[in-house]
């Protein structure tokens, strides 16, 4: 009986994301039809086998998305909606780039301290929202949205003050990180033939993912955090200091957000400038939802988003369709996921009720039979 329930649970777990993706494909196809775009060509481009260099790009983009989604998920577990990951990672990336660019420390030491700088500044920026929430009761939704806007202006201002001018360039960048403090990429030569390399800091994503799982599920702090997220009153009754939990989880979420830009900084850009990738924090929200705040689920969701991004890049060239279509698909997937989970959850409850009813009916019959003999 228990194994059958286990199998059913796994099937139910897989059913929701699959249902969501099928719904997303159908809805997007309808949109394409209405817009008069070539449906077949679009799906052929999106689902064709990626080239080796594109596989590397998918892994790399997935790494960054993963970190962002974990930062958002830490908040979700605590019933906090940290929309501010976007601002937090930009503040942190700038601070880390500025620090590492000075080259005060040699080689790897520079990298490690810069990572700490990033975590500290991400936590600091998120901490403002945390502090406002616990002292003045300001919703973190509101404060983090505002802090995102402030972060944009603050970083743009500080960047203009600290930028290093290159003759002939119109870009504004911080001082480049010295050669010795760049994190070398991991070559996949044995597996696929491409000169592109996977970000060395993919290790960071793995470590953060593991810590997320470990702290939440295997420590008392994690238990308290989840308990507070589910029911504040119950947590208070069991002696948890809710305010401290809120503030701490906001700091942790911010520290994780601080790491989002690090694979980009140390593995690709080596500077923080006005052409860095933006919007990673918002993608993280969608990915955390899609992955159901589960460290493995988020990894799949991050790779799916990265896959769609990479495949969507060629849409304009091969299908003559705007690559913004990918954003539509991603949005539809997120909506479908929420709906699909609800549908599957209700179906699950109905199934369970039927099973329990059958069991009860059986039990009700057995004692009677026993009494007769």
């Amino acid at each position, binding site marked *: 009986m228990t194994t059958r329930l286990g199998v059913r649970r796994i099937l139910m777990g897989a059913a929701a994301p699959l249902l969501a993706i099928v719904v997303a494909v159908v809805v997007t196809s309808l949109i394409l039809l209405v817009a008069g775009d070539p449906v077949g060509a679009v799906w052929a481009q999106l689902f064709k086998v990626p080239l080796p260099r*594109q596989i590397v790009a998918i892994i790399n983009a997935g790494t960054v998305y993963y970190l962002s989604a974990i930062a958002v998920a830490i908040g979700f577990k605590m019933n906090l909606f940290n929309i501010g990951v976007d601002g937090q990672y930009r503040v942190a990336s700038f601070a880390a780039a500025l620090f590492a660019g000075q080259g005060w420390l040699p080689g790897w030491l520079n990298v490690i301290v810069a990572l700490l700088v990033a975590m500290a500044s991400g936590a600091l920026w998120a901490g403002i929202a945390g502090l406002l929430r616990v002292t003045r009761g300001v919703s973190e939704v509101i404060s983090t949205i505002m802090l995102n806007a402030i972060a944009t202006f603050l970083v*743009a201002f500080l960047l203009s003050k600290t930028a290093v001018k290159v003759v002939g*360039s119109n870009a*504004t960048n911080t001082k480049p990180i010295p050669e010795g403090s760049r994190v070398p990429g991991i070559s996949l030569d044995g597996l696929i033939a491409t000169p592109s390399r996977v970000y060395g800091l993919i290790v960071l994503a793995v470590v953060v993912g593991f810590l997320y799982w470990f702290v939440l599920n295997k420590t008392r702090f994690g238990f308290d955090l989840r308990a507070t997220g*589910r029911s504040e009153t119950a947590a208070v009754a069991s002696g948890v200091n809710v305010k401290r939990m809120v503030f701490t989880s906001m700091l942790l979420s911010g520290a994780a957000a601080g790491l989002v830009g690090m694979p980009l900084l140390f593995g690709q850009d080596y500077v923080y400038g006005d*052409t860095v990738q933006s919007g990673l924090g918002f993608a993280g929200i969608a990915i955390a939802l899609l992955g159901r705040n589960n460290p493995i689920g988020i990894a799949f969701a991050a790779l799916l988003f990265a896959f769609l991004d990479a495949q969507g890049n060629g849409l304009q060239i091969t299908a003559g369709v*705007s690559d913004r279509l990918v*954003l539509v698909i991603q949005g539809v997937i*997120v909506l479908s996921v929420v709906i699909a989970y609800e549908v599957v959850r209700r179906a699950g409850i109905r199934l369970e009720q039927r099973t329990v009813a059958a069991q009860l009916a059986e039990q009700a019959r057995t004692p009677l039979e026993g009494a007769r003999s």
Partner: protein
Amino acid sequence: MRHATKLAAIAAAAALSLAACGSSSTPSPGAGDTPAGTGGAALKVGMAYDVGGRGDQSFNDAAAAGLDKAKTELGVETKEASAVNGEAESARKERLQQLIDAGYTNIVAVGFAYAKSVGQVAKANPEVKFAIVDDASPDSAGPNVDQITFAEEQGSYLVGAAAALKTKSNHVGFIGGVQTDLIKKFEAGYVAGAKAVKPDIKIDVKYLTQPPDFSGFSSVDKGKAAAEGMYQGGADIIYAAAGGSGGGVFTAAKAAGKLAIGVDSDQAKTAAPDVRDVIMTSMIKKVDVGVYDFIKSVKDNTFKAGNRVFDLAAGGVDYSTTGGKIDDIKSKLDEYKAKIISGEIKVPTS
């Protein structure tokens, strides 16, 4: 828990869909068509636009005009793709590489954001010829790269002088798309030109977005809101150095019965027909000439790598006279023009 999740879902979906409709541009249906009557050996040119893409009536359209001219006059085959706001560096590289993979072995990259990707992809594909607009840095330099840059501050100086000569309230405005060093050059020239005519003139300056948010080049609504504020504050002429967002500035000018100055293209010809009459003049940045010259040089086997500067002397920047609104001050503007060309006036860049 469930409540926060649902709220988050709605917000996430909204953010994604807003991003999706952030730009009005779609790849033109004609992109990729082979012009009729050309042989199989037609030159193949791939063009990677900046944020906003074809249809922004300004910067990208100026580049597109050069491509279209090459298509009709030189019979080249073309393929176009445009950048997305906030995209990763790897996405830019991948776009250039995919154009090359599709057989388009002459690449035009529009905008300085492509500097690093052009440098790297050019190195990896030494047989492919590249042109990059708005960058002359070591990042993009290479033996197969034509770096096309402009003296935007010189053209902006002239339209600044025109604004100062034409203003009745002694109060003009400047709206920049994104506060990058490039757009600050437009501002610096404009302010210098206006002050040269009227040292006591009041100049409002506003940028629509801060990097890395480049939506300021493609948000008509933001341009409109900023311009409405400036016109209500007393400015009567606004210079819109904001790419596709300029359309919003023109709409606001029309509603307020005031004037505006266009950018990059001769916008009295390229803007929406109903707002063309508010465009007093435009600072023309001849991206089309740069692009066309690159394609022609490849076709004629006269390609030369390195930086080509399009300044006032080379006719790379200028002011437009379409609509006849500045005919009365043309002689004065041409005096300033001659002085800049002769070096008597040095226009600041920041």
